[in-house]
């Protein structure tokens, strides 16, 4: 779980969360692939450079949806039930993520919007690789619940 998150009720537009870092190495990719295949090690564009090259890619790439789950867990760390029941994520995959990439997750508050269920916190989110290049960009939001 993420450490050092602010109280969500204190967040205002322009505020950023402390960045979160996640590695996507071969082991993480293989573990995710085993999860996808029901425990089997298979060769595909995510796990094998040669298969990826035959598909027109320069080398193996991580599944784009893999790190989206990092964003969901991060938002759950921050907003708890307000993300699990009312949360949204919308992302565009702009660059491939390669085995060995170190991802930085960033989130900045765009808006606090009042709606029927309460106050919605909307974040602009991004995943940057170790060269600070955005690989996935988009938004995430959830409801502020009184604790």
């Amino acid at each position, binding site marked *: *779980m993420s450490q050092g998150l602010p109280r969500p009720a204190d967040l205002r537009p322009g505020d950023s969360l402390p960045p979160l870092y*996640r590695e996507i190495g071969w082991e*993480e990719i293989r*573990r*995710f692939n*085993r*999860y*996808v295949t029901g425990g089997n090690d298979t060769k*595909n*564009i995510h796990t094998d450079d040669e298969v990826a090259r035959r*598909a027109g890619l320069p080398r193996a790439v991580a*599944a*784009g*949806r*893999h790190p*989206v*789950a*990092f964003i*969901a*867990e991060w938002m*759950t760390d921050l907003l*708890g*039930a307000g*993300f*699990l*029941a*009312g*949360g*949204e*994520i*919308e*992302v*565009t*995959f702009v660059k491939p993520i390669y085995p060995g990439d170190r991802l930085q997750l960033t989130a900045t508050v765009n808006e606090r919007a009042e709606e029927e269920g309460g106050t919605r916190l909307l974040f602009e989110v991004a995943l940057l690789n170790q060269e600070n290049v955005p690989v996935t960009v988009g938004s995430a939001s959830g409801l502020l619940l009184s604790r």
Partner: protein
Amino acid sequence: MDKPDFVWENLSAGMVVGEREITVTAEMVAEHCGALGADRAWYREESPFGGPIAPPMIFINDLLAIYDENFRRFGTIHAKLAYRFHRPARVGERVHQRVTVKDLYVRRGKGWIVSELLVRGEGGDVVCTSLHTSVLSLTRAREG
């Protein structure tokens, strides 16, 4: 029977790709958490939802799994992903999943497909929806 290829000519907007029911088990939750390095007491013990719950993205692979049950697919390049979480699935809950083709289009010489995964709980209420935009192999596709 041979499954059709996952290509433009075998798909159409509005088509229901497949439906199934699955039970969310503690083992599924543990595998998901292990694959993603996720951990949270709510996934194993009590939660504000009255018992252990599944992580929000527990169904992350299920759209492709339902495609694979019905089509022969080599690999899929995703361009966009959107999720809406209505409520968490409970561990032990039986859920209904349906994948539908929402849109097909050609842009800049590439085929694109927008697919929706809709997950409903035991009472028929929506657990989550997700929209996946992916590159689709063009065979006999035509612009316009």
